[in-house]
């Protein structure tokens, strides 16, 4: 897989334009960051921190400013928060960037509560995005949970590049997007499985959803089930020109990678790992990746990824 040249990582203070609470503890947050909006490619991520309302280092305009600041501000006591990584969900020509996330801990909870107009500390865009040098005829997008978020930017760009889209989504109980029912039945699934996501349908995608708990219109099971049925139903001759793009939890992606290998389909996966710096400097976010020599070595998810070829990932190295 060709590695794209690394771009500048912008460090910006970005005003929050909009925060929308969505079903199931999800949240869509839009902020203003023209250089990031301009340069983001699908699969890249931003590293976001919510500075305390008052308690934060800020840019200084003058020495006097610095002096005044340090008099009243014991900087070491600022609320400590490592940046949180989120895939770029959407980006607009007029300079906004959106992330879509689930509230799972302290950082996401703070972000979900960000006041409109308050400023986020954003580093981005980071990492190598999906390799789109040869857009496939049909892209099969497989998402587990919030894995749906970074895949949307990808779907948009692929659609623009003329690729057809198949979108297979697995979710715990709720999706942060608009669900509808479709009358069209797709050939590789039961006829009862009809739920679609409007945003993807608007891009002309074939969409199907799997849920763990039975739910009307959804396949009861996982996104891996959907993919498995899709691939099984796919005549071998039609595999060419199709490629899989996946994002979600490790175990799910390991299974996706297994299916891709079995059917000899190209597959790119967007990985998640706990990060220190998000800049390639601390070696925290590593993952075993196969080298040209065949050896597996720890590579950094933040700047060597987060997208890797599914074939290269040492899936068994982590449970």
């Amino acid at each position, binding site marked *: 897989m060709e590695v794209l040249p690394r771009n500048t990582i912008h460090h910006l203070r970005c005003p929050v334009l909009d925060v929308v609470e969505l079903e199931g503890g999800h949240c869509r947050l839009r902020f203003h960051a023209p250089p990031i909006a301009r340069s983001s490619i699908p699969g890249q991520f931003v590293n976001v*921190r919510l500075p305390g309302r008052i308690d934060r280092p800020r840019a200084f305009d003058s020495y006097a400013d610095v002096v005044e600041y340090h008099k009243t501000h014991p900087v*070491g006591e*600022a609320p400590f928060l*490592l940046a949180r990584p989120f895939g770029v969900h959407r980006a607009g020509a007029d300079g906004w960037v959106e992330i879509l996330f689930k509230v799972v801990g302290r950082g996401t909870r703070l972000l979900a509560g960000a006041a409109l107009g308050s400023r986020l500390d954003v580093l981005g865009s980071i990492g190598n995005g999906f390799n789109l040098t040869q857009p496939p005829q049909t892209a099969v997008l497989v998402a587990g949970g919030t894995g749906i978020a970074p895949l949307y930017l990808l779907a948009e760009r692929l659609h623009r590049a003329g690729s057809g889209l198949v979108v297979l989504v697995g979710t715990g109980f709720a999706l942060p997007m608009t669900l509808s029912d479709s009358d069209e039945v797709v050939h590789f699934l039961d006829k009862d499985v009809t739920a679609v996501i409007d945003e993807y349908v608007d891009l002309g995608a074939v969409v199907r959803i799997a849920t763990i708990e039975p739910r009307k219109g959804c396949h009861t099971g996982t996104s891996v089930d959907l993919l498995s049925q899709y691939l099984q139903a796919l005549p071998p001759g039609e595999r060419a020109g199709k490629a899989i793009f996946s994002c979600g939890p490790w175990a799910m992606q390991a299974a996706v990678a297994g299916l891709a290998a079995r059917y000899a389909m190209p597959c790119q996966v967007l990985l998640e790992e706990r990060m220190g710096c998000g800049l390639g*400097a*601390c*070696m*925290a*976010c590593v993952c075993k990746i196969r080298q040209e020599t065949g050896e597996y070595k720890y590579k950094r998810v933040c700047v060597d990824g987060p997208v890797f070829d599914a074939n290269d990932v040492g899936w068994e190295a982590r449970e």
Partner: protein
Amino acid sequence: MSEPKLAVDLAGLEMHNPLIVASGTFAYGEEFINVGGFKNEDIGAIALKGTTLEPREGNATPRVAETASGMLNSIGLQNPGADAVVRDVLPRLRAFDTRLIANIAGGTVEEYREVARRFARAPELDAIEVNISCPNVRRGGAAFGADPTAAADVVAAVREAWGGPLIAKLTPNVTDIAPIAAACIDAGADILSLINTLRGMVIDTATRRPVLGNNFGGLSGPAVKPVAILMVHQVYQIAREKNVPVIGMGGIAGANDAIEFIIAGASAFSVGTALFWNPSVCRQIIDGLRAYLIEHEIDDVSKLVGTLKTN
């Protein structure tokens, strides 16, 4: 007042300002150049990632965990080995207008000596920092830095291999840091740096497992600053008698923190964890330090070193 002098000379390690980026938080220095807001000029020196003789894989992930005002890391010295650093990395770093400090690690005294020998061949290098917090594989894994004799052995071995400025980096996980500092000086250290991380653990109560893949790790960030300040103060008492400068670190996140370290006795200071949550912190610290010196009419940062008046 005119511009105060920020340049410092630590036993031959001449820096245009006293800010060093801490080992392990800046890789081999190349990553931050992509980051908007980060400026090479803001830093006096880079302490490179800890390097061993052979390449090391490092520990299992997760390798970091956030804690109250701090973080734990257990990177486990992932590095490509001394030869690769000397051959591939250092030449590229020539482009940086800043001092380069190799941070070396090992499991035996011989390994330390050999790593130093390899680095001694690199013309780009300005100093070697010996990370004596590493476990001594021959003695059941206790850190070299936990014992004055073992610490001295490591420093003496490196001293044989390297004629330039030699920094011994002390661990805070000891009952009394003073005799260890003294032993390192006696063994040939030109400079002492401290603190390395405090040992710690975080447990995920949902899974009842340690969050870190390696179970425990090293605590850094603002949480540890009071511990670091006291140890710098203690080590300074010993080091100044022997004219050995001290590099202070541990939780520096702003100018005021750096100034605390200088007052406690640090001739230079390192910034580590704060880089992760604020890549512009170096500029802010240098600006704030300059402002403090002007406000207090101190024309040379060196005059602030060790000016603590105890109660």
